[in-house]
């Protein structure tokens, strides 16, 4: 194990299978330095500002190289969810139809609610049939579903404009060749929260949907030090993801195999082939997710759930419901790079025991 890996282990919480994780150590180590060097307004003339501008460019180059875009296309957003409005509404014309899928994020549904649109159904395997559309139409395309980990097929035949939601996929999104706008969330590579990375491929067909007087995409302030820290987190995360890919893939298969053979009546989303290895969602029939999550938490394991009884609004995950998967007893796991095999085996043994008790 490398030195960086040792630091990572010390800084992480054991048994954390939630989507959120502590700030990446590479970002945390740089934070105070980042605030020392990146406090000035990069658009001004004095020396501190010029230094900030250099750091801003460096950060943009790091993002661009790992996200597969050009740095001049890139914009930092203090509010990542604003990127859905910028990315989708900015492509819509009066005659456009907005196509989106039933497993898209609620931010997309909210835009469709006001602009109108066509919701595309999703199969139980997570597949969506994309229309060919007209050149003015807009497709909200989710690269990877953040709940199930299922990768979307490339929308090659779509003739219109494509907004890529990469908030659930981080650096794993394969941008379709005809993408027009895209959005990433810093949290997906263990960067600081409160930072979105937004990109516009072609400013000539994108119209700013926000009130504006000049050519700027937004006039909202973002934190340059956090953007710099996020760039370092991304760089480290890309490397660690590669290093751990084979191991995480094996752990994912192990969990899928274990829950389907050792625990009766489990509904697993997707397969090893259709989903990315670090995400996993399964539902355990006749169990209460709220109790599952609480019992696991007591034993030191943190998981997410898409079940109604564990959410504030009592509505089940629209992703599970749209795919026809069981919505109660749902457990959602994120397999972070630093997760160990022993931790996973202990988790599964504990889960099996809890399920047996809950079903009695």
């Amino acid at each position, binding site marked *: 194990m490398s030195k960086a890996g040792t630091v990572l282990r010390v800084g992480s919480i054991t048994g954390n299978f939630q989507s959120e994780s502590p700030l990446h150590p590479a970002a945390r180590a740089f934070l105070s330095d980042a605030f020392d060097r990146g406090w000035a307004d990069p658009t001004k003339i004095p020396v501190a500002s010029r230094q900030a501008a250099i750091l801003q460019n460096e950060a943009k180059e790091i993002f661009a190289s790992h996200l597969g875009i050009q740095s001049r296309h890139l914009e930092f957003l203090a509010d990542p969810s604003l990127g859905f409005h910028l990315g989708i509404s900015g492509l819509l014309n009066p005659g456009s139809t907005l196509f989106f899928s039933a497993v898209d994020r609620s931010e997309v549904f909210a835009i469709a609610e006001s602009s109108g649109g066509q919701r595309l159904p999703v199969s139980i395997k997570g597949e969506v049939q994309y229309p060919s559309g007209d050149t003015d139409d807009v497709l909200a395309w989710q690269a990877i579903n953040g709940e199930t980990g299922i990768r979307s097929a490339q929308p090659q035949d779509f003739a219109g404009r494509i907004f890529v939601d990469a908030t659930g996929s981080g650096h794993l999104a394969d941008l379709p060749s005809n993408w027009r706008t895209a959005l990433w969330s810093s949290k997906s590579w263990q960067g600081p929260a409160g930072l979105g990375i937004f990109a516009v491929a072609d400013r000539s067909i994108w119209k700013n949907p926000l009130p504006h007087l000049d050519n700027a995409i937004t006039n909202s302030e973002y934190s340059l030090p956090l953007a710099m820290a996020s760039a370092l987190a991304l760089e480290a995360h890309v490397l660690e993801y590669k290093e751990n890919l084979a191991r995480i893939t094996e752990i994912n298969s192990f969990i899928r195999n274990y829950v389907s053979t050792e625990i009766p*009546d489990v*509904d697993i989303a997707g397969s090893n082939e259709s989903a990315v290895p670090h995400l996993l969602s399964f*539902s355990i*029939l*006749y*169990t*209460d997710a709220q109790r599952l999550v609480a019992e696991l938490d007591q034993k030191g394991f943190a998981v997410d759930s898409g*079940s*109604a*009884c564990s959410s504030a609004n*009592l*509505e*089940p995950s629209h992703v*599970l*419901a749209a795919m*026809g*998967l*069981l*919505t*109660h*007893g749902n457990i959602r796991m994120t397999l972070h790079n630093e997760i160990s095999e022993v931790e996973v085996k202990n988790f599964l043994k504990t889960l099996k025991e809890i399920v047996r008790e809950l079903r009695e």
Partner: protein
Amino acid sequence: MELNCLGMRCPLPIINLARAIKVDAEIILLSDDPATLADLSAWSRMTGHSFEVIGPDKYLIKRL
């Protein structure tokens, strides 16, 4: 048989249904839990049953 699960939250309607259908091959389920429709479809697929919506918050479930 009619099974009244109004006011119950998931997974109780499905748990009660699974018990009841072992006795009767056909059940009319009353449930106003927002997860019931989605869960009936998954449960039917997993356990070999069929169901149809026969009214507001009212479902007919059959053993296959």
